[in-house]
C-alpha cells in the first residue's frame, strides 16, 4: 500500500504529521479547558499514524508504533481508567469519586481532586482509543490480498 513513488504526497505528509501529533497532544491535555478530550485526541493520533502507514508503508508505521506495544497499550488505557477508580476507593471514597484524590499529595504541581481525576481518566481513554484504532488499521492493512 506504499506510495513511495509520489514525492509530493511524501513531502506534504512529512510536513503535516508533526502538526497533527502536536494538535492531538493539545486536544488531549487541554481537553479540560477547551473542546477536546481523550476520545478526540485518540482518534487524531491514530489518524496521524494511519496517514504515515498509508504513505510510507505498513512496515514503516510498525517501526514507529510496534504492534506488540499497541496491543499492550490497548489494555493499559482501560487499566488506567479502572485504576483511577480503584485508587479513589483505596483513598476512602466511592469508585471514581475524584474528590478523594486529595490536593495535598504534591500541592503546587498537581491540580485538585476533580482536575486530577478527569486528567487521568481522559489519559486512559486516549491511550486505549489510539491503540485500538491503530491496531485495527494494522490488522486490516496487513491482511493478504486474495483475488
Amino acid at each position, binding site marked *: 500500500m506504499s506510495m513511495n513513488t509520489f514525492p509530493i504526497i511524501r513531502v506534504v505528509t512529512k510536513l503535516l504529521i508533526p502538526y497533527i501529533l502536536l494538535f492531538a497532544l493539545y486536544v488531549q491535555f487541554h481537553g479540560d*479547558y*477547551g*473542546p477536546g*478530550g481523550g*476520545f*478526540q485526541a*485518540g*482518534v487524531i493520533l491514530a489518524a496521524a499514524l494511519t496517514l504515515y502507514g498509508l504513505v510510507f508503508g505498513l512496515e514503516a508505521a510498525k517501526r514507529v508504533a510496534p504492534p506488540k506495544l499497541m496491543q499492550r497499550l490497548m489494555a493499559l488505557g482501560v487499566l488506567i481508567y479502572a485504576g483511577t477508580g480503584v485508587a479513589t476507593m483505596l483513598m476512602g471514597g466511592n469508585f471514581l469519586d475524584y474528590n478523594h484524590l486529595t490536593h495535598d499529595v504534591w500541592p503546587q504541581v498537581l491540580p485538585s481532586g476533580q482536575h486530577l481525576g478527569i486528567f487521568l481518566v481522559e489519559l486512559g481513554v486516549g491511550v486505549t*482509543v489510539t491503540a*485500538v*484504532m491503530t491496531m*485495527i488499521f494494522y*490488522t*486490516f492493512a496487513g*491482511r493478504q490480498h*486474495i483475488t
Partner: protein
Amino acid sequence: MSLEQFLGLYNYWIVIFLMMTGFYIVISRGNLIRSIIGLNIFQTSVFLLYITMGKISGGTAPIIPPALAAAHSPHDEHTLDAHGEHALNGHSVDEPGAAAGEPIANGAAELAEHVEEIAEPVSAAVTIADGPIYSNPLPSVLMLTAIVVGIATTAVALALIVRIREDYGTIEEDEILAVDRRS
C-alpha cells in the same frame, strides 16, 4: 403551517430523511459493504438528532470562559449552601413562581429544592446568573462516546466482511445464501 413552525421542525425532518435514506440502503442493496455504509448514514443521523435537541437558540458551546468561571467559583466553600445556589438560579428568572419558592428554598431542605424546580420551568437550567446562555452539554457527551463506539463496531463488521469474502468468495448477500444452501 407557518414559516416559524416549518423552520422549527425542518431539522427533525431532514434527520428523518437521512435516517430513512440509510435504512433504504440497508434493505435494498445486497452488497455487504454497502449495507454497512447505509448503517453508518443511519447512525450519523441519530447523532445529528441528539445534537439538534441540545441546541438553544442564542446559546454558545458549553465551555465557560475562565474569567467568568473565576468570578463564579466560590471563594469560601462553606458559604455555598442552598441559599447561594438559589441566588444563582433566581437571578436569571423573573417568574412569580420563583419568588414563591424562595422562602422555602432558604429553609435549605432537599424537598424545598424540588418545589423550586417545579415552580420555575423556564431556562434557569441553562444559564449562569447574567452570563451567556450555554447549550445543553448532555447530548454532546452521549454522542461523543457513541461516535467512537460506532467506529469500533463498524470495524468489527468490516473485519467479518473480509473473513466472509475469504471463505465464500463473494460479499453479495444472495450469493452467500446460495453457497450456504448448496453445502
